[in-house]
């Protein structure tokens, strides 16, 4: 039987297969290294927790206070999740299905609060209402801080809903509410859950808002133990309670996602035919967004600007500029490191599911719920043994990368999975790097780039790890805000907070650009997270 494949092709195929095997080996090795890096904080906690006698550990775990704090944390997380899901789904559904004037522009106020750190929200609200404090205040602040995650996640889900089913439902005489409940909701459940997961993990690991508002969550207890009792072992033990709690949240999310129908089925998309033109609905959607924007954008800006203007102490412009440059550069470096170290895992996760990919992603997800102070001390513990590397911007940037790794992994894997499999097959027989450069990169680059911007954005706002790991004398906008606010000089903190919000608003605006709304990559990132990652 004559051969149909020429010898040279055979050689090429064997070579291609060998190349692919080598590449896979290299990738898996790299994923192993990334997983090991992500394990640093958990390993650190294990070492510290094991230094406590078992009896004391048990006593600590089962004392009434631990249970009380766990209950407070659960209640706060539940409150924030319920509020953000109800508000976020309603607002996203309104934005998607109701015929609104300047519909796409309306998305901006719904996303802009993403640029404002929870502690700045808290400062501005306390400045406005001095009595602002307690559980409900914390629930309110964390809800307005995390609402954009649910809005964006839901919007991205709504864009993939099969509109022909909606038309069928309507022709069968279902009311809009029935249609939403029976047709739309089952299809976007997973997306909503992804947004809710982000809100939940943010709430679990938040320190700024809860400590200022006098609510003790697990993160506050952990911070107090380090800070007030120098008891690193006790803090580590409580950290494992937090990890267990985050795991429950992540598992709940995974369960909801499993019930969501297959996203690869062929669907019909046409938003035009399903737009609702109803005056009452229109005004309530606009009203809801206006109310949110008032609470989450207008009030913080009003307070910051009025504080800025009434500031009696001359603003140190040089300090302000230095802090702004420091903040931007170290956050950018962190985003860059996150980009580099998330690449192998992103590539592995974009392909068929593998055990090493799944395990690595779980480690990253679990580590992602940890408060900044834990990551900070873990890096202090190891970093202080590294000599000249300790307390450099590089190490701080590296800590940022560790903290927000899940974010860049998610955007990386989603972007790469958009590259058609046929292209990947071609890549296995041709020069790998050529294909990556000419085909893969152009398709995936915008998504990866904007995922990196998301890490940058979050790193700029980071405080607890920054305080510990920055080079001595190196101040970021966040540390300057802390330093003024810690001695109750809110007026002096205002210019720093204002600059932080303005700088952060720029990338926020880019990733939610109305003309690109349908292809917005922040939503792709959230899609990626929905596939198993996590976010903060």
């Amino acid at each position, binding site marked *: 039987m004559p051969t149909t494949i020429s010898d040279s092709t055979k050689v090429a195929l064997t070579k291609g297969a060998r190349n692919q095997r080598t590449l896979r080996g290299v990738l898996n090795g790299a994923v192993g290294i990334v997983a090991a890096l992500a394990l640093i904080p958990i390993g650190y906690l294990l070492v510290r927790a094991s230094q406590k006698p078992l009896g004391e550990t048990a006593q600590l775990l089962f004392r009434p206070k631990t249970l009380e704090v766990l209950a407070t944390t659960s209640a706060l997380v539940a409150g924030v999740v319920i509020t953000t899901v109800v508000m976020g789904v309603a607002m996203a559904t309104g934005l998607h299905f109701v015929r609104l004037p300047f519909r796409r522009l309306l998305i901006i106020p719904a996303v802009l609060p993403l640029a404002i750190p929870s502690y700045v929200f808290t400062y501005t609200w306390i400045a406005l209402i001095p009595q602002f404090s307690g559980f409900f205040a914390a629930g309110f602040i964390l809800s307005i801080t995390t609402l954009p995650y649910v809005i964006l996640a839901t919007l991205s889900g709504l864009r993939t809903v099969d509109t022909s089913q909606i038309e069928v439902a309507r022709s069968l005489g279902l009311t809009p509410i029935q249609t939403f409940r029976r047709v739309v909701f089952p299809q976007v459940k997973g997306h909503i859950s992804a947004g809710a997961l982000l809100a939940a993990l943010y709430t679990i690991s938040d320190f700024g808002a809860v400590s200022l508002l006098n609510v003790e969550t697990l993160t506050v207890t952990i911070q107090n133990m380090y800070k007030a009792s120098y008891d690193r072992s006790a803090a580590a033990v409580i950290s494992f309670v937090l990890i267990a709690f985050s795991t429950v949240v992540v598992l709940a999310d995974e369960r909801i996602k499993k019930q969501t129908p297959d996203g690869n089925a062929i669907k019909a998309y046409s938003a035009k035919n399903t737009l609702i033109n109803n005056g009452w609905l229109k005004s309530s959607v606009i009203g809801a967004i206006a109310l949110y924007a008032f609470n989450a954008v207008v009030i913080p800006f009003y307070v910051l600007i009025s504080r800025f203007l009434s500031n009696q102490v001359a603003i140190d412009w040089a300090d302000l500029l230095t802090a702004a440059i420091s903040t931007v550069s170290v956050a950018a470096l962190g985003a860059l490191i996150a980009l580099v170290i998330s690449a192998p895992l992103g590539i592995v996760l974009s392909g068929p599911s593998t055990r090493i990919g799944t395990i690595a992603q779980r480690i990253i997800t679990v580590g992602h719920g940890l408060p900044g102070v834990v990551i900070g001390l873990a890096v202090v513990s190891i970093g202080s043994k590294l000599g000249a590397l300790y307390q450099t911007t590089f190490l701080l940037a590296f800590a940022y990368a560790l903290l927000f790794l899940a974010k860049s992994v998610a955007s990386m894997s989603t972007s790469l999975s958009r590259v058609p499999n046929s292209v990947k097959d071609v890549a296995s027989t041709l020069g790998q790097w050529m294909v990556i450069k000419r085909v893969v990169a152009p398709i995936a680059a915008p998504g990866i780039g904007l995922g990196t911007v998301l890490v940058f954005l979050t790193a700029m706002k980071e405080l607890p790890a920054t305080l510990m790991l920055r080079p001595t004398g*190196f101040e970021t906008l966040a540390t300057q805000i802390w330093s003024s606010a810690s001695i109750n000089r809110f007026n002096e903190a205002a210019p720093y907070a204002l600059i932080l919000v303005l700088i952060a608003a720029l990338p926020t605006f880019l990733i939610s650009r109305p003309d690109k709304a349908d292809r917005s990559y922040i939503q792709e990132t959230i899609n990626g997270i929905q596939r198993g990652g996590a976010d903060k």
Partner: protein
Amino acid sequence: MPIKKKSLVKVVVVALFATLLAGCSSNSDQASDVTELTVYSGRSEEFIAPFFTQWEAQSGIKLNIRYGDSAELAAQILEEGSNSPADLFLSQDAGSLGAVAEAGLFTQLSDEVASAIPAQYVAANRNWVGVTGRARVFAYAPDRVKTLPLSVADLTKSEYKNQVGIAPTNASFQAFVTALIENKGADFAKSWLKALQANGVKIYPKNSAIVEAIDKGEISIGLVNHYYIWEVSEGLGRDINVKNGFFAAGDIGNLINVSGAGVLASSKKYAASEDLINFLTSATTQAKFVSDTHEYALIPGTAAPAGVPALDQIGAPSVDLSSLKNIKTTQDLLVEVGLL
């Protein structure tokens, strides 16, 4: 998207450049004559920076100052161990100094250092010395508190129900509880804390929050340090409805705590560090602390801050400040009663 690419490149270039700069400025000191000194300062930049600047000018040595919370910096030093880049640790309170001293990370200071500071404000083994004095007081709303408490024990009485504020995570509160345990025993301290809780004590994250809460009318009395009423009032830019009160003479509630400094055993710049401590404890600097930060000077003969009695008129209990290093017992107790 050529514009986006370019701006990304710019961001990267700026980032790398800044990293190089930061790298240069923070790790460049291996020369034999000291040109730089690294200080971990638990005292806030706002209040202490002018003092540091003055020393830099007169010594010609550049200070790399890491500002943070005293206890967090102590935790960081404990984590760093002998690898700590810090030469000197300046703390808000004796407790954090005690924690570092207990871990054996401070060096013993020579007798010539801060020789004007009275012995009761210096660690027995000269691991650290006090720099300024801080009196524990009860801050209160004069219009709402009818009877002033004579002792901390009075705060558990029903007339103060739901009206008292404390900050259990705050180092100066813990120092006070430590002194309470040292003076009256752990059992007394425990039952006092429990009685406070039963009396509806309100928990705050820090001293200033207590003073603010009194001003707002949330509570009427709180255990704080004496200078917070100035700090909060200056921060708010207005007068506040809060006054300082002292307990009866000798009551443990009138504890005098100190901010202080120690030199890290791992530091190779001992002489320069000592010089900085001598500067901070000199007569001129001490007087400046009184006028600028409303703290007490520790060297005898310096005037007290306006509006509070002199250090020796307070009726402070006699407490060995070195004993305040036993914070572990305090913290175990606070954890046990559920305040931590």
